[in-house]
């Protein structure tokens, strides 16, 4: 009984601490009229870690009212029964769902294909799809488990048709990653990167590796790995020159805000600490037909981490 009381007291203190941190910590502009969204990846464990992060994730919406969430796959691990949909998705994110926040999912390797028919994942019955939450910004959800000709042809067509919009693909397997367990999916990169470069993709979100990583811009594109909303693989970041910032010591989610040609980002851990933040500046005049040459099409400017926060750097564990 005493243990239970102590645990409750500890939880209460942590909640207060978290709330206090949020009060100080939001580095995003949080302007009215901007597009605000969030990213979670590898979330669907249904365990206490997912719920703990989800609580932080839900709470911060009072401060930063994100309009929708993108899920970069592994939305559900293990069994996917009726109860699992509740335990691993509906219950942890209930406050957001109740407020009408939309979740847009991509399929991970642990996700059954019929998740595409689940209305709350907003996939419209398709394993790959696109949506345009407002003028000037377009997202592309891809099924990186099965990148067949049908999907590649579709992506080429949709990217070409998206004009000068922000082009933001998201999918499970990262084209660039410093993960020791998975790492970069070079076979997938061979197929997707030429399309991304040719069609001036700006930012890409993936998961699969259970940590946060901001990759140094590659051929003018900013890649993020965000696979730590339900699982974490401590010590798995093994930087060999790709990493601009990484965090593999805890769980996290991302908050983003698009304001014209700027995309601001802030990454927050399960204890409410800011792991990384910055702004991606888009150069609309940059031609991406000569990748690797000249100025990059996106420039990512990190912001200083607020005092008190302690981002993890890549450390190789023995």
């Amino acid at each position, binding site marked *: 009984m005493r243990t239970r009381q102590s645990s409750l007291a500890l939880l209460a203190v942590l909640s207060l601490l978290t709330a206090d941190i949020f009060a100080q910590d939001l580095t995003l502009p949080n302007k009215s009229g901007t597009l605000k969204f969030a990213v979670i990846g590898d979330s669907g464990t249904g365990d206490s870690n997912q719920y703990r992060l989800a609580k932080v994730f839900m709470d911060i919406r009072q401060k930063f009212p994100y309009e929708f969430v993108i899920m970069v796959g592994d939305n559900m691990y*293990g069994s996917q029964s009726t109860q699992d949909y509740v335990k691993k998705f509906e219950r942890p994110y209930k406050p957001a769902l109740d407020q009408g926040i939309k979740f847009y999912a991509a399929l991970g*390797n642990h996700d059954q*294909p019929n998740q595409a028919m689940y209305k*709350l994942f907003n996939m419209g019955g398709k394993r790959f799809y696109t949506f345009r939450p407002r003028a000037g910004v377009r997202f592309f959800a891809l099924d990186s*488990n099965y990148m*067949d000709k049908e999907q590649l042809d579709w992506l080429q067509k949709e990217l070409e048709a998206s004009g000068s919009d922000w082009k933001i693909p998201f999918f499970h397997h990262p084209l660039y990653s410093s993960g020791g367990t998975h790492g970069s999916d070079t*076979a997938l990169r061979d*197929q997707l990167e030429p399309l991304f470069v040719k069609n001036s993709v700006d930012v890409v979100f993936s998961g699969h590796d259970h940590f946060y990583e901001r990759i140094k811009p590659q051929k003018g594109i900013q890649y993020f790995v965000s696979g730590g909303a339900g699982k974490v693989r401590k010590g798995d970041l093994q930087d060999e020159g790709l990493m601009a910032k990484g965090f593999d010591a805890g769980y996290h989610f991302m908050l983003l805000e698009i304001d014209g040609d700027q995309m601001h980002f802030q990454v927050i851990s399960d204890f409410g600490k800011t792991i990384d933040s910055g702004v991606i500046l888009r150069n609309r005049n940059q031609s991406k037909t000569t990748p690797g040459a000249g100025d990059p099409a996106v420039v990512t400017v990190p912001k200083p981490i607020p005092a008190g926060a302690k981002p993890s750097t890549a450390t190789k564990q023995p």
Partner: protein
Amino acid sequence: MKNLLPSTLATVWILAAPACVTDAAQQTAKMPEGISINADAKLMADFTAKVDDYLKLRKSLEGKSAVPIKNTADPKELLSSQKALGAQVRAARAAARRGDFFTPATQAQFRRLLAPPLKGSDGTENKIAITDDAPEAKDIPFQVNAEYPRDESLSTVPPDVLRALPQLPPDIQYRFAGRHLILYDAKANVIVDFMLNALPPLPAVEKK
């Protein structure tokens, strides 16, 4: 130039195959004994035709289902409709046998098609991509018409590998479990057919 030539050849071969089926049979008959240059194309065309027939059957069953699969916010309805379709498929294919799709000759041809994308350094990457996510063979029921286990991951199938094999219609997919290839109906969650040891020995990858 990564895999360009084999992929291109495979693509041309596959694209040409359906148009050649009738001609292939006629030409093969006219060929001197032992020479059948279009026999492989015919094999692939036969395979594709069987898949198309399966899809027609599956679609006709969908149309008759009392619990049609549709977008729903109710997970119970989502799962029950898929299970119902799977049961209909099993009933309609009660006579289906292993090897209906992957005949011995088709298996040999698939192994030949799978070899190029699995060779060299690119091949190693492709093998790692497959192994990384694939379930272990012991966790999958290798039975025609079996339900794919709902708590098992689905292997990634690298783009190079998909390009090398005959293209499948939407919802019908190639998947791997260990070294074995599965013809998988993603909509009904049914193992349509399978082919053992489709892949050469794979690198060991730590299971997550």
